[in-house]
């Protein structure tokens, strides 16, 4: 059946009615549903974070008990990982942008796409429902035997993670099929925007690693029901085995979070530097290099777990190689700036912030991969600082870049550059004030997940708490001006950034089925230069 939307309509206002949103098969609408759902969860996860930081303003109990505190960091971690960072760029941004960049009408399996959203929503509801069953206090890592022996609702939270995993698998499957099958005429592999390459690499990890999480959770359930010892030492099981399984998924999951962010950065830099991206092929290859290495480094989370010396040796060695493709990307972005013509719009500012924090996150990652060094740092605030530098610093900064970059395309309106800069400053300075002191807490040996701490650590914790409220203020400002722009913003042209990728070659916001005429690709995605400016 031929679907054509009337001239002058777009995906937001055609077709009309609430029902047309609830059962929509349009990738843009599903992307937007993900987007606002994820933003809501981000708010909740962020409030938990501020609660943690308030409690840690001084040693000893401030306004919550140890049990409450343990629930706060568990919900903060679980929400941020499973409900925010994993779906934030692939499911929200990717859903909207990927088919547009390919020149396609939709993803390959629109119904599966809608199903993956509702599975996500259902998983999220189960996750939040645990709050009414005593809450979960295991940390987002669910280590056995704590998670299986304590009376908290950990089993229910594991079920939520199990459900959410399927959403992730379906999205990955959909993207791989879409990239293979639905590219527009002339959209050859070597003309594929790097954001698509990043989503491809991410999808492979989602497809191959997520089932292991499901398997692990099944094993936990089987042990609970049948009493056969798998992970529980009291039944003759091995708790360290759970850690192996858990990290076999969760380490690649870190790259599910980071690779799409690298993809966003790849889009932003050439557009605002007004020149071709440096080393396109190496950039694409590096994404797959990272994805490949991601599968064989999980043991670096377990250097002190009692695994063998040889295992530690091998995992430390392999982990070092994560830094090589990452380095290639960082240097290539620098080279893309060289002799460019750099415009300081909000997405580019977030690129600068991204580089600043991601490089610190990456370098401290090398420190943690170093076997001898990690023994001291493991499970201290050094690790907390490191992964926040990578995930918040890397992924969240890239997400903010993506929001500002694609805002005109999503909503057909422009945001306020001035307010964007103010909010950026708060987020950037606040973030560093929050997490940089935590490296020093780590040097001084402060363990993570501590409700109470020694007076030695007071000053650095106070800096961190102050920083976290600056970040909160920054996001509050962002919510305000972006919300304002959503309804009152200046009308955006189709291609405000003069970008060359296909999503900008249709109207803003795009109509149902994306393009009025099937696009034909005749040049690379980043062929900026004198003739195209």
């Amino acid at each position: 059946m031929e679907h054509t939307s009337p001239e002058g309509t777009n995906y937001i206002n055609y077709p009309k009615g609430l029902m047309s949103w609830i059962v929509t098969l349009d990738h843009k609408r599903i992307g937007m549903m993900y987007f606002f759902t994820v933003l809501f969860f981000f708010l909740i996860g962020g409030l938990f974070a501020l609660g943690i930081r308030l409690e840690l303003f001084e040693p000893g109990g401030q306004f919550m008990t140890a049990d409450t505190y343990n629930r706060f960091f568990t919900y903060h971690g679980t929400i941020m990982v499973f409900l925010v960072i994993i779906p934030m760029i692939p499911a929200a941004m990717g859903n909207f942008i990927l088919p547009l960049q390919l020149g396609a009408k939709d993803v390959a399996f629109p119904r599966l796409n809608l199903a993956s959203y509702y599975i996500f929503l259902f998983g999220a509801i189960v996750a939040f429902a645990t709050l009414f069953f005593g809450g979960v206090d295991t940390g987002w890592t669910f280590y056995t035997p704590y998670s299986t022996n304590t009376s908290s609702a950990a089993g229910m939270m594991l079920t939520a993670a199990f459900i959410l995993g399927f959403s992730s698998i379906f999205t990955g499957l959909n993207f791989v099929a879409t990239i293979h099958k639905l590219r527009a005429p002339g959209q050859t592999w070597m003309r594929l925007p790097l954001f698509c390459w990043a989503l491809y690499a991410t999808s492979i990890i989602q497809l191959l690693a997520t089932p292991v999480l499901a398997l692990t959770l099944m094993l936990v359930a089987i042990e609970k029901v049948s009493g056969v010892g798998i992970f529980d030492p009291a039944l003759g099981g091995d708790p360290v085995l759970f850690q192996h399984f858990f990290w076999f998924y969760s380490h690649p999951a870190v790259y599910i979070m980071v690779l799409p962010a690298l993809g966003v950065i790849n889009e932003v830099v050439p557009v605002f530097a007004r020149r071709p991206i440096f080393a396109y092929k190496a950039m694409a290859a590096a994404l797959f290099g990272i994805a490949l290495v991601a599968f064989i480094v999980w043991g670096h989370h377990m250097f002190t777990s009692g695994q063998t010396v040889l295992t530690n040796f091998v995992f430390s060695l392999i982990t070092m190689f994560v830094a090589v493709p990452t380095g290639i990307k960082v240097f290539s972005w620098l080279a893309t700036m060289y002799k460019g013509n750099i415009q300081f719009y909000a997405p580019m500012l977030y690129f600068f912030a991204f580089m600043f924090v991601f490089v610190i996150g990456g370098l401290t990652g090398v420190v943690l991969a170093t076997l001898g060094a990690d023994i001291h740092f493991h499970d201290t605030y050094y690790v907390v600082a490191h992964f926040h530098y990578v995930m918040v610093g890397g992924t969240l900064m890239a997400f903010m870049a993506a929001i500002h970059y694609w805002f005109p395309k999503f909503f057909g309106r422009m945001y306020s550059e001035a307010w964007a800069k103010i909010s950026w400053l708060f987020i950037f300075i606040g973030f560093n004030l929050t997490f940089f002191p935590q490296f020093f807490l780590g040097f001084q040996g402060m363990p993570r997940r501590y409700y109470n701490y020694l007076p030695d650590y007071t000053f650095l914790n106070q800096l961190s708490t102050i920083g976290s409220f600056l970040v909160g203020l920054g996001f509050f400002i962002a919510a305000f001006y972006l919300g304002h722009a959503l309804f009152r913003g200046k009308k955006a042209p189709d291609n405000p950034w003069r970008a060359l990728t296909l999503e900008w070659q249709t109207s803003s916001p795009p109509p149902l089925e994306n393009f009025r005429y099937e696009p034909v690709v005749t040049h690379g995605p980043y062929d900026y230069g004198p003739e195209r400016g």
Partner: protein
Amino acid sequence: MDWSFIFPIAASEIARSWDTLNVFLLVICVFFFLVVIGPMVFFAIRYRFKPNRKVSTVSHNFTLEVIWTAIPTIILMVIFWWGWVVYRQMTFDLPQNHKQVRVVAKSWSWTFQYEDGRTTTNQLFVPVDTPVRLIMTSEINDVLHSFFVPNLRIKKDLVPGLYTNIWFKPEIVGQYQIFCTEYCGAGHSEMLGKLIVLSKEDYELWTWGKEIELPPAVGVGAIPQPPGLVAKAPSSSKKEETGIQVAMLGDAELPSMSLVEQGEALAASRGCVACHSSEDRPGIGPSYVGLFGREVELADGTTVIADENYIRESIENPHAKIVKGYENVLMPPYPGLLTELELNALMAYLKSLEN
């Protein structure tokens, strides 16, 4: 050089090796941070937007790409190797003659079990300049814990049903902070202990049950605790009116039996010796003599080193690994027959019978 403004005071040779490694790592981090952020800031200013600026269209440069792939790889290999060298030192450099202390963790306290047969809670007493090996486990129905002393830069998880070990040789007399660094529930941040490193003379007095003055706190945890912040004071110390902290014996009185003797008594009273001889002749089961540390040949042709983990498994689940020549002997499993402390005593006894 003194790095204590950033690293906690180093109280052992290994801690100093760790410091040197981490100074190197810090230098590398700062260097590469500048290598990336320096040019980024420079390019952002130098190439800021001007209408009609002529941009470069160079899209790749093979030499440059090889350089920024190869050089980091080489540096990473150097870092890896150095990290391995320090870890090897932490793992393998334990001298032959060392003290052993057995550690049992439960939520949320540490029990230390000494060779002379006594135990202390949350306070680990060791002599200065003496290598000490900790053989650690967590109560079987408990959860994971982790033993961490920042001033020694050592850490190892304690796993129920598994023995892990760690060693150190403290060089400065003082009290050091012990943390639990594996999340273990509501009392996790209160699961604190003190490593009390005594001078050799004081240690000798402590062994004889004499009261001694505790050394001052050093490094992490040296700032006095405001009252009421830390939930419980270590159970094996008391404050005299003079304000001087005095060490007590620990939870037990001076024990009448050493750990080995306790183990020997247990082997007799629980009936182990009915089948397992403590003389060098086979009984119904294999003899204990020369067992510990030996390579045991199993019925399926493989071999296993008889360490704490093997011995524990052989008591709790004897059919998991059947010794060659004993295929037809069916020892019943004895899970929970012995407490963790009793198991430790038995291990010490078996170890005393090693060749």
